[in-house]
C-alpha cells in the first residue's frame, strides 16, 4: 500500500465565521500500481482531497499515512522532504517556473532532493526525451505549447521517481484531442508501474484508470474497479 487516508475531514473557516465542509469523513487506500480517477462536480471536494493526500493541506481531522508515517505529524521541513521525494504533483495550470527552461523545470525537484546538477539534468533529459520533448529542452515555458507544458509538468512530477503521482485536473484547459493524448500518456506511465491519482470533473475520463471514485458534497458517493470491458465501452 502506498497511501492510506483515515477518516479525513477538512473544514474551511471563512472570515465571516461561516465554515465550509469540503471533505467529510473520507477513508481510502491507494495500492501500488493503481491508477485512480477521482471524479465529481465542481465543489465536491476532490481537489481538496488531492491536496490533502499530497501533504500540502492539513486535514481538520484524520490521518494521511504514507509508508507507516502520518504525513501531518511530521515537521513542515520533513513533510516538504517527503513531498519532494515520495509524491509527484501535476497541476491543472502546469505551474512551470517562468524563468527556468524545460530541462531546469524538470530537474529542480531533483536538485532540491540533493542530487548533483549533472545527475539531475541527466534524469530530467531522459524523462523529457521519453515524453517526446527532446527538442524543447532549452525552451522557456512561454515558448511551449499547452500540451508540451503539460508534459514538462508531468516529467517534473516524475523526476524523483515518486511513490505516487497526483494530478489535479490535468486536462482541465485542453481540447478533446489533447485530452486524449494526455490520458494516453498517463496510461503509459501507469503501465510502467507508476501509481497515479487523478482528479477530474470530466465524467468521460472516469474509465481512464483502473479505479473510479465518485465524490459528492465532500464524501465518496461511489467507488468501483474499472474493468477492461468498461474501458472498451
Amino acid at each position, binding site marked *: 500500500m502506498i497511501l492510506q487516508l483515515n477518516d479525513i475531514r477538512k473544514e474551511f473557516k471563512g472570515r465571516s465565521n461561516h465554515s465550509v465542509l469540503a471533505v467529510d469523513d473520507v477513508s481510502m487506500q491507494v495500492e501500488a500500481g493503481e491508477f485512480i480517477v477521482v471524479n465529481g462536480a465542481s465543489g465536491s471536494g476532490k481537489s481538496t482531497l488531492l491536496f490533502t493526500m*499530497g501533504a500540502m493541506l492539513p486535514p481538520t481531522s484524520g490521518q494521511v499515512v504514507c509508508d507507516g508515517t502520518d504525513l501531518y505529524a511530521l515537521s513542515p521541513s520533513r513533510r516538504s522532504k517527503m513531498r519532494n521525494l515520495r509524491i509527484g504533483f501535476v497541476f491543472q495550470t502546469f505551474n*512551470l517556473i517562468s524563468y527556468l527552461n524545460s530541462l531546469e523545470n524538470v530537474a529542480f*525537484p531533483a536538485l*532540491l532532493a540533493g542530487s548533483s*546538477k549533472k545527475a539531475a539534468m541527466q534524469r530530467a533529459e531522459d524523462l523529457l526525451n521519453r515524453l517526446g520533448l527532446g527538442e524543447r529542452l532549452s525552451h*522557456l515555458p512561454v515558448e511551449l505549447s499547452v500540451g508540451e507544458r503539460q508534459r514538462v509538468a508531468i516529467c517534473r512530477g516524475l523526476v524523483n521517481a515518486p511513490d505516487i503521482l497526483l494530478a489535479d485536473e490535468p486536462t482541465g484547459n485542453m481540447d478533446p484531442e489533447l485530452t486524449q493524448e494526455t490520458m494516453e500518456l498517463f496510461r503509459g506511465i501507469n503501465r510502467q508501474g507508476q501509481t497515479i491519482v487523478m482528479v477530474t470533473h470530466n465524467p468521460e475520463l472516469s474509465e481512464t484508470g483502473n479505479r473510479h471514485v465518485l465524490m459528492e458534497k465532500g464524501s465518496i458517493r461511489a467507488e468501483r474497479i474499472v474493468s477492461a470491458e468498461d474501458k472498451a465501452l
Partner: protein
Amino acid sequence: MRSILWMTYRELSVRKASFIIGLTMCGLLISMFVSIEWSLRSRGNRVQGDIDQMGPGIVVVPPDKSIADLRQFDLGSRYFGTRELVDPLIARLSPHTRAVDVRLSVRIPTKDGKLPVVGIDPARVVSPHETLRQLGKNEVAIGRELGRRLDKQSGDVIRIAGSEFSVKTILPPAGDLSDLAAFMPVSRLQAVTGKIGKANVIRIFPESGRDFAEIRELLTDYGSRLHAVAIDRGEIAETRIPQTLASHRYAVYVLLGVFLSFSMAIWTYLDSAQRLIELATVAAVGCSPAGLVGLLVGRSAVVGAGGALLGVALIGGSKWITEGAFPGSITDLSDLLATALCGAVFFSVAGAVPVALNMSVRNYVGFLQN
C-alpha cells in the same frame, strides 16, 4: 542550499525587470549614503584639522630627551637621519596618520645668546600660522616674544649662523613654543648648521580614533633610536569631539540602514506578491520553509550587493567626471566600498527576513487550486 543559490542565480539572470527595479532603488540609497559619508568625512577632517592646530597627538624626540627638553630647545646632539629613519617611518605611519611634521630644532649661538631656531618643511608643516607655509629660502618667521626680545619687526634682517635672513613676519602670540623661536625652511637650517639630512623632532597627528598605543606599536622597530611621547590635547579635543563626530556618523548610518531595510522589505513583499503561484509551486515540489526563506533573502542579498556597487560607482563616477578624481585616497574608496557592501547586504537581508518568514509559512494551496 545549492539548489536555492542556483534558483536565485537563474531567476536574477532571466527576470531582469524586477532585479533592475530592486537594484536601482538600492543603488540610489547607497549613492545617497556615499554622498553623505563623503561629506561627513570631509567635515571630520576639517574639524580634526582644527584640533591639530593645537599641536600633535604624539611627539618623537631623540631617545634620551623629553618634552621638557623640547620646550627648552635642548635636544642635544643626537639626530634622526632623514633617509634611514624619518622617510621609512613616515611611510609606515601614513595609513594611520593625518599628518607627520618633521622638524630640526637647534639653539644657535649669537651675540645676544643662544637663539632657538626651528627648521620646518613649509609643504608639510602643521601650524595655525599660515605664514610658515609660505616661507622662502632666506626668510624667517619670528615668535612674538623672541621678536620683542631681539627688537625685530617684519622686513628687518637677522643674522643666523653667519647668514642673513629677512624677517617675513612676527607670529601672533600662540602661548606656546612658537612665541620663543625663529622658524625657517628645514633645508636651509640644515645647510647653515651643517646638519644635512638631519632632524630631531617628529610631530605625529594620528587619524581620529587612533590612540597612542597603536601608533607606538608601529614605532617598536625604531625603539632604541627614538622616544615617542603622547601629548594630551585635552579631553574635548581627544575624546569629546571625535565621539560627537562618530555618533553623528552612526546616526546617519542607522537612519539610512533602516530606510534601506524598509525599502527592501517593500520590494521583497511586492515582488513576492506578484509571484505567489510560483512560490507555491516551489513549496509544492518540496522546497522547505527554510528553503523559501533562503530563496527570498538570497535575492535580496544579491540586490543589496549589486546596489552597493552601483551606488558607489554612481557617486564615484560622477565625482571622477566633475572633479577629475575620487575624494580621498584609493584606500578610502575601498574602505567605503567595503562599508557600503557589508551595510547594504546586512540591511537588505534584515528587511527581507520578516517578509520571507511570512511568505514561508503561508498556506499556498488556495493559489494552487485556483
